[in-house]
Structures are given as C-alpha cells and as structure tokens.
C-alpha cells in the first residue's frame, strides 16, 4: 500500500539538501506578529514569545500599506465586495477594483494594457508558457528568477542562459542559435534581488533587436525604487515602455499586496487573458487586495519621485557604511545590499549574531542563489532611520570579523562562465 510518509522521506533527502548544510532551519519560517515594515515583531519556531527587530527582510520598500488611503481602500472594498474573488478572472473573479488596478498599472508603465495574475510567479509561468513552444527559444541571464525558468519548462521550449549581465555573450548565442528557433525571447531582471545589481539593459535590448528577438523585463524589485519617478529600470535608463515587449511586475513588493502583472501591448495581454493556463486555472486576487494595490499604485504615481530618491539615499548610506569596513558589495544603486558568504556555517553564524542583536535578515542559500553562493542580503526600507542603518551596518561588520568571513569570501561573486569574466572586466 502506498505510504505518503515514506514517499516524502525519500524525496525530502534530496529536496532538503541545501538546508542540511546549515546547523538548523531555526532561522527560517518565523511567524510575523506585526506589519513587516522598517521594524517587525516575529516569533521564531524555537522561541515561545515574539521579539522586535529592525527589519531587513521585507521588500515592502516604501511602506505604502501604512498610508491611510491604502488602508481605506482595503476596508471599503471589503464592505462592497467581500473577502475573496471566488473565481478565475475569465469566469467570475474579475471585479471593479481589478479593472481599476489594471488601468492604474497601465498608466504607471505607460503601456497599452496590463493583465493581472494571482502572483508574480504565475505571471512568469503564464507569459512564457503562452508565448513559447518546443521550436522556440528562451535566452536568459544565468541569474534570472527561478519562476522564469519554471515558465520555460512549462512551455517545453528550448532554453539557454547567457553569462550574467553580458550582452556580448548574449549576442554570440543569438548569432549561433537564432536561425534554429522560431520565436526567441530574451529575458532579464530590472534588479537582481539577490545581489542588488542592475542589468546593462540598453545593450541587452540592442543585441536582441539586432537578431529579431523579443525582450522580457521583470521589474519586480525595480518599481518603487529606480528611475526619476521610481517607475523602474526602463525609466532609470530613460528608455520608453516600447523598448521591451513584455514587462512583468509584482504587487507583493512595493505595492505590499498580492498578485503579479504583465504590461505591454493589448495583443499580448488579451493573448494571456485567454491563452495562459496558469492564469485561467487560478482564482483572481481578492478584490480587497486589488483595491488596496490600486491605491498604492496611484500613490506611487503621485509621490514616486520623492519616495524613490529617499529610498535610494538610504540604501547608499547603508552600502557606504559597509564599504567603509572594507566589505565588497555585489550591486549598486538599488534598494538591495548584498555580499557573498560561500561558507554556509559562517553565513548561519553571522545571521544569528545579528538576530541576537535585534537585526532581522534572511540567510540566502540555494535554490534562491546557485549552489555555494550563500549570501547576506538586506532590503532597505524608506522609513529606516539613518541611526538604524548605521547600527545594523556596524553589527554586520562585527559579525564579518568575528566569523572570519574573509575578504575573498565577501568579494564579488565568481562568474559562472569564462565569458562572464571577460565581460566583467569590460564593464568595471
């Protein structure tokens, strides 16, 4: 007779391999007991009572869900529409707030139209599985988000990675492989959330266009952070919305709700609404979340310039404090600060040192990054005080010294391929 327990035990060994290198999983899966903003109260599994922390583990970059107009939007939508959507958007789950949110996002990104999805993950699964097939090709930065790789797998399309942030490697692959495929989509991220790096977007778009390839840009960690109005990486590079074909975003970071979206041409969004199985087979996000996110999007449209500039100032202050301690960081100019700690025990110990002193962050290991690329990663919040940032940076430097995280370990991540090494020299 089949036994679920023994089946799971067999699979668990392989699936939990990344966590097995850590002394325990006690730093993961905490229970939050407050909003997750610049500070947070939470209870770890090994503890009985909640503790209060300065929070570096939340992508709620701008605290838009603390604003009265966002709160009222949630409450009013609950009174008018109830809690859940109770249906796929295609059938019966698409309410007035969903339509309002689509319009607000379309205005924000200055595109023709926007389609909503139940999560950012579902948005990426949807867009690739609906746009590519076995004879097509997905070319992607080797450090792209796993949801896009899963989308390519669902599409059963050919997939090939190019060296990280290396348009020359992309160009060489396009020259060699373009003629073997029908549709080619080139994918990259607006901000690499595990390193805080930006892509060389103009060069990547140019390489794609030279070879008749479409471009997908995932702006999940860029919206609310980059650009003169904080509308994302396209704005940061002063590129129009039409520079890319598919703009993917999320509602669970800067907009502090739940859901994902794809913004672009009406032809694309209508294709996804009726052709993407992950979309059709999922319930829509709750109307309360749609209303709250629409209010947050409108807030960003009005105040993005001020909020984005303040967030970037604080992120730079934090990065400078770490750099003054001779720590070499991976990225620049975004809302993320990160450095490599390849030794899993050192990573766990340094994180615990900070947790014990009231600083909350997550130790990042595979599969969030590639194997042996553990890192300490900090999300900066617009309401972190300068004192909080300086104090957390000082504690981080103490932990780095105490656990002998060497300069070598903390240095920029090693390129995965030789092409990347050549390119990083060219770009530095």
């Amino acid at each position, binding site marked *: 007779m089949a036994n679920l327990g023994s089946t799971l035990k067999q699979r668990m060994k392989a699936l939990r391999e990344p966590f097995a290198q850590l002394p325990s999983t006690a730093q993961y899966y905490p229970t939050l007991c407050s909003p997750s903003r610049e500070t947070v109260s939470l209870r770890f599994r090994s503890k009985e009572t909640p503790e209060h922390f300065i929070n570096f583990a939340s992508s709620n970059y701008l605290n838009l869900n603390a604003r009265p107009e966002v709160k009222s939007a949630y409450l009013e939508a609950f009174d008018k529409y109830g809690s859940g959507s109770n249906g796929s958007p295609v059938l019966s789950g698409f309410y007035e707030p969903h339509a309002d949110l689509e319009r607000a996002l379309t205005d924000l990104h200055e595109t023709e139209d926007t389609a909503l999805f139940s999560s950012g993950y579902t948005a990426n699964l949807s867009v690739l599985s609906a746009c590519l097939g076995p004879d097509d090709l997905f070319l992607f930065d080797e450090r792209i988000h796993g949801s896009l790789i899963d989308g*390519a797998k669902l599409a059963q399309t050919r997939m090939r990675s190019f060296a990280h942030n290396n348009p020359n490697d992309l160009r060489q692959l396009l020259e*060699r492989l373009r003629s073997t495929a029908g549709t080619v989509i080139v994918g990259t991220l607006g901000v690499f959330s595990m390193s805080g790096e930006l892509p060389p977007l103009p060069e990547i778009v140019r390489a794609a266009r030279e070879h008749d390839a479409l471009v997908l840009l995932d702006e999940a960690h860029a919206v609310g952070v980059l650009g003169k109005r904080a509308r994302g990486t396209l704005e940061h590079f002063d590129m129009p919305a039409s520079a890319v074909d598919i703009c993917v975003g999320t509602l669970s970071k800067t907009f502090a709700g739940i859901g994902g979206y794809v913004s672009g041409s009406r032809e694309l969004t209508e294709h996804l609404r009726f052709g993407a199985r992950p979309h059709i087979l999922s319930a829509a996000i709750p109307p309360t979340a749609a209303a709250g996110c629409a209010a947050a999007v409108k807030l960003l449209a009005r105040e993005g310039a001020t909020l984005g500039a303040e967030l970037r100032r604080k992120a730079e202050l934090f990065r400078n404090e770490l750099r003054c301690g001779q720590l070499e960081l991976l990225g620049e100019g975004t809302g993320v600060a990160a450095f490599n700690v390849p030794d899993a025990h050192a990573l766990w110990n340094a994180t615990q040192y900070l947790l014990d002193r009231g600083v909350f962050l997550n130790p990042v290991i595979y599969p969030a990054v590639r194997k042996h690329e553990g890192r300490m990663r900090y999300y900066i919040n617009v309401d972190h005080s300068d004192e909080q940032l300086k104090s957390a940076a000082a504690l981080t430097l103490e932990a780095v010294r105490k656990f002998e995280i060497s300069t070598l370990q903390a240095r920029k991540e090693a390129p995965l391929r030789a092409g990347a090494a050549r390119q990083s020299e060219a770009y530095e």
Partner: protein
Amino acid sequence: MNRETVVDRLKSILRDIRQQAPHHSLTPDAEFIDALGMDSLDLANFVTEVECTFRVHLSAESLRTFNTLNKLVELLEGDALARHVPSAFG
C-alpha cells in the same frame, strides 16, 4: 559524421557549459551530474546546444537516463536511425 566526431562535438559543448570542470574529468563514461557537477541549468543549456547542433529533440529529463557521453551518443544514434537521418553519423 562518425562517432568520434560526435563525441568530440559533445565534449566541446560540455567544456563550454562546464568550464569549472577539470578537463581530465570529461571522459566518455563520466556522469553529467555526479562526476561533472552539472545542475539543472547546465543540463537545460546542454540539451539546447545538443538539439541545435544535431537537429534533434531531447528533454532535460532524458539526460538523467542517458547520463554520460557514451549513453548520449547511443541515444543520438538511435534517434538518427529512427528518423532515417544518416547524415548525423555518416
């Protein structure tokens, strides 16, 4: 294209994808995952390169069974025979 040429081409693809792997480890019977340390992304890249080079359809899953260069050559030979494409192996 004879078997030796096919093996050389496959080795060249593997060297490009697994540049960290020592050259002496690229033997015909080295297992892609256990001996060469390939992860799922490497396997997906390898499948695409093999497909485009030999004009065949594979899946990343198939490399878990045909998990060495020798076994992969057998798979490609079988595929070429099944499709009556003698050109791949001359």
